[in-house]
C-alpha cells in the first residue's frame, strides 16, 4: 500500500519536472533503510518508464523545446558518466550526507525562492496552449 502511494506521488512530481525522485530516494533511505547508493539506483530505474510516459504526453501537448534539449544533451551525457563514477568512488554514508545538503538547498529554494517564477508563469499562461 505504501509502495502505491510513494510510487504514485513520485510519478506525479517527476512527470511535472518538480524533482519527484527525491520522494522515492528519501522514502527508501529513511523508512526502508536502503543504502543511499542502492536507493539512487532504484530511483534511476523507476524514472525511466515514468519519464517515457510523461515525455510522450508532453510531446503531444507541444511543451518540449526539442532544439534546446538537443543542445544540452551531449554535455549532459558526459556529466552523467562522471557523476556516476564519482558516486561509486565515495563512501555511501558520505554520499548520503551530501545528498541531504543538496536536498536542503533545493527545498529551501522551492519554499522561499519562487516569487519571480510566479510572474513568469502568469506571463507564459496565454501562449502555452496553442
Amino acid at each position, binding site marked *: 500500500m505504501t509502495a502505491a502511494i510513494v510510487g*504514485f506521488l*513520485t*510519478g506525479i512530481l*517527476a*512527470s*511535472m*519536472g518538480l*524533482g519527484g*525522485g*527525491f520522494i522515492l*530516494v528519501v522514502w*527508501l533511505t529513511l523508512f526502508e533503510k536502503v543504502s543511499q*547508493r542502492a536507493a539512487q*539506483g*532504484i*530511483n534511476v530505474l523507476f*524514472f*525511466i518508464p515514468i519519464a*517515457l*510516459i*510523461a*515525455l510522450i*504526453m*508532453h510531446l503531444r501537448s507541444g*511543451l*518540449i*523545446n526539442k532544439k*534546446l*534539449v538537443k*543542445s*544540452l544533451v*551531449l*554535455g*549532459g551525457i*558526459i*556529466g*552523467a*558518466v562522471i*557523476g*556516476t*563514477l564519482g558516486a*561509486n568512488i565515495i563512501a555511501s554514508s558520505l554520499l548520503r*550526507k551530501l545528498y*541531504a*545538503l*543538496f*536536498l536542503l538547498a*533545493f*527545498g529551501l*529554494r*522551492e*519554499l522561499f525562492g*519562487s516569487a519571480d*517564477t*510566479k510572474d*513568469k*508563469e502568469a506571463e*507564459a499562461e496565454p501562449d*502555452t*496552449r496553442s
Partner: protein
Amino acid sequence: MKRFFEGSLCGFLNGFFGSGGGVIAVPVLKKEGCSEREAHASSVALIFVLSLVTAVSYGFSGSLDFGEAWRFIPWGTAGAAAGAVFLRKIRAAWLKRLFGAIIVAAAVRTLFS
C-alpha cells in the same frame, strides 16, 4: 560551449545523486528562453536521456535492483500520466511550496539520522 557546461552540470548531478538533475535543468531551460511549463516538460526529456546513461553506468558497477524498482513502477506510471495532465492545467506554485516543505524536513532528518 556554454550549453555544453550547463548540460554537463545537469548530467553530473543526475549521475552523482541518481536524481535531481531536473533541479538544475529547469532554471537552465528557463534562462535559455523556455516558459515555466515548457521548462518543466523539457527537463523531463533531458533527464530521461541522462537517466538512461546513469542506469547503464550504475549497472556496470552492480548497484541496480530491478525487483525493488518494480514495486513502485506501476503506480508511478499512473502518477506520471496524472502529472502530465496537471502540468497543462494547474499552477505549480502551491505545489512547489508544499513539496519544498516536505523536502526540507526530509533533508534535516537525513542529516541528523
